[in-house]
């Protein structure tokens, strides 16, 4: 029977964060609120998109051992552009991402994707691929961020730092505070490690159960 277009499988099997565990440097740190996760995911996708376009164009002309430095320069320029834009338009987002915004250049996903895929294929294919990878990564990071925030301080801020840009604030509590008492351990670094560890474990067991059936 035709393999059903299973959103679940498409999202997870090749997902840079969950299956290949790349790009953890930037993920764990700022996924304390839903919005941070979302913004980080978006910015990584954007950078990945543009850099894979450029790389797929110029990869033919660059000799082999100069590959890595030149690709880094391409990515770094895009990140700097992003940084300048963010600083200009919404200071709170820039503050929220802090040191981790420039660190996107060294993010293993982008470098990995660009080296393995974009440099070998045509522009069209690499755009599609970077979009797919970007969306997968954003989904993963948003999932992690929402779990940590719900458990952390029992709320889900969709728009807070961006309010300067978009004009409206949107955040709401999930559980009535009488039932569930949030603990800020999930916002600390230890909580991040443990939550991601357990999350990965559960996802693996779901996938194993899926295969074994």
């Amino acid at each position, binding site marked *: 029977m035709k393999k059903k277009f299973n959103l679940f499988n498409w999202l997870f099997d090749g997902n840079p964060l969950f299956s290949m565990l790349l790009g953890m440097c930037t993920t764990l740190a700022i996924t304390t609120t839903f919005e941070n996760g979302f913004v980080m995911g978006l910015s990584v996708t954007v950078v990945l998109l543009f850099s894979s376009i450029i790389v797929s164009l110029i990869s033919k002309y660059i000799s082999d051992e100069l590959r890595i430095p030149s690709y880094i320069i391409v990515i770094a320029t895009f990140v700097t552009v992003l940084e300048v834009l963010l600083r200009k338009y919404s200071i709170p987002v820039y503050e929220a991402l802090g040191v981790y915004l420039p660190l996107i250049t060294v993010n293993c996903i982008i470098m990995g994707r660009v080296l393995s895929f974009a440099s070998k294929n045509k522009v069209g294919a690499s755009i599609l691929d970077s979009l797919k990878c970007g969306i997968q990564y954003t989904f993963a990071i948003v999932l992690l961020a929402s779990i940590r925030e719900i458990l952390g301080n029992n709320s889900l801020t969709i728009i807070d730092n961006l309010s300067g840009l978009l004009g409206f604030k949107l955040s709401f509590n999930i559980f009535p505070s009488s039932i569930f008492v949030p603990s800020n351990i999930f916002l600390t670094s230890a909580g991040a490690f443990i939550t991601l560890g357990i999350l990965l*474990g559960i996802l693996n067991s779901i996938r194993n159960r899926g295969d074994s059936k």
Partner: protein
Amino acid sequence: MKFKVDNGPHVKDSDNTSRIMNRLMIALIPIICFSVYKNVSIIYRMDISILEALKPLFMILIAIFTSVITEFLYSLFILKKNKKDLKEYMKHSYAIFPGLFLALVIPLNTPLLLVSLGAFIATLIGKMIFGGFGHNIFNPALTGALLVTTAYGSFISGTSNLFELDTIGSATPLANLANFNYVGTFEQIVGKFGSIFNYIFGTIPGTLGETNKFLILIAFIFLVATKVIKWRIPVFYISTVFVITYIVSLTNDIGIWYPLFHILSGGLLFGAVFMATDPVTSPITPMGQVLYGIGLGILTTILRFLTPYPEGVLTSILFMNMTVSLFDKIGLKIRNSFNKKLIYITIFILLVISTGFIINKNLNKDDSSVKILNVIKSEDSYVYEMSSKAWGVITANVTIKDGVVISVDIVNSSSETKWSHIVSNDYINKIINGQDNLDSLDAISGVTITSDGLKEMVKKVIEDYGDKYER
């Protein structure tokens, strides 16, 4: 007639794991009974409901119940064991101990729900995920305790601790020591809790396990005689703490009671005899155990003196659990040659002495408990980032506008600070309103240290603002 064939030796020692664990249980029973008796006898005088009095008992029962149930469910669903060998598995995996040890380590006033959550975490994350009995790296009970106290710390200190409120106004002896900047006269530090004997016989505040030192000593002798625990770890652990605190007492010419106080207070004795010697998470080689014990001693004293958290035992045991295979490697390397052993022993002894002096040096530095972390100038007012070492570290942003403090908001506080009291008495506004003569403002009973800390902070800001920006 056919016979059974196997290649091991055909006669074996009568002792086995379950008998060892039973003897460990026997050693624990007197300590549990004493802690229940202590709580009941105190409450008897204050005629509070029996339910409240038997809290230690409930804590232990709930903790054991949760950890056994968790292990049962874990092996049933996740390890998918069928009925027959599930019973066998449960018999050999000693599910009681993570819960029991957790109940004995967690502060007395933790609500029961948290105790069961702690036992659940201790069994699940501390032990089962790492592969069940014999494969965990960290001591399960301590992992559970650490996770729960960090996650819901404010909750624990929020509820009133029956025991403390009654006899002695403030927290455990160690927290009290921290307030005197770790050095003080006999009166201040020990006298407050009665004589040294109170310490030995446990009529001082503290968690369930750590009260009666005499019973712990007896349990230690019994456990070593019946070969249940590794005797080298507690012996070297406690003697290192004694040596270091002795150095500190010598240099500040305090009496011999000071090292004794350090050994008899807090969770040191209980931790050294029961928690540090948990066979699975401690080194195997004899020399490894010796160095492990000395390392534990050094870490505990560093944590006790230099960090705001009064209790160093829990963190140092967990930290040393990470380095167990390193000490085993060393132990294996030097097991045959005596002079190699000598080299390692001297290195570690030098470490011990140098820690003594380092602690001593840091002590004398008059870091008054309140410090200005940094000052940020916003439009017309100044925001002082302050940290005050009251009961643990409190950091707060105090905004001051041309001489008048307009707001004090707490950034973060260590797990032991009791915020429910401060908020309930709306103490912060009281400070802000009466900020010109703060000394007259008295502290809230039961939370003396924290309220003093806040007052100090505001006073420091006003004074600093005065000489820096006033002119």
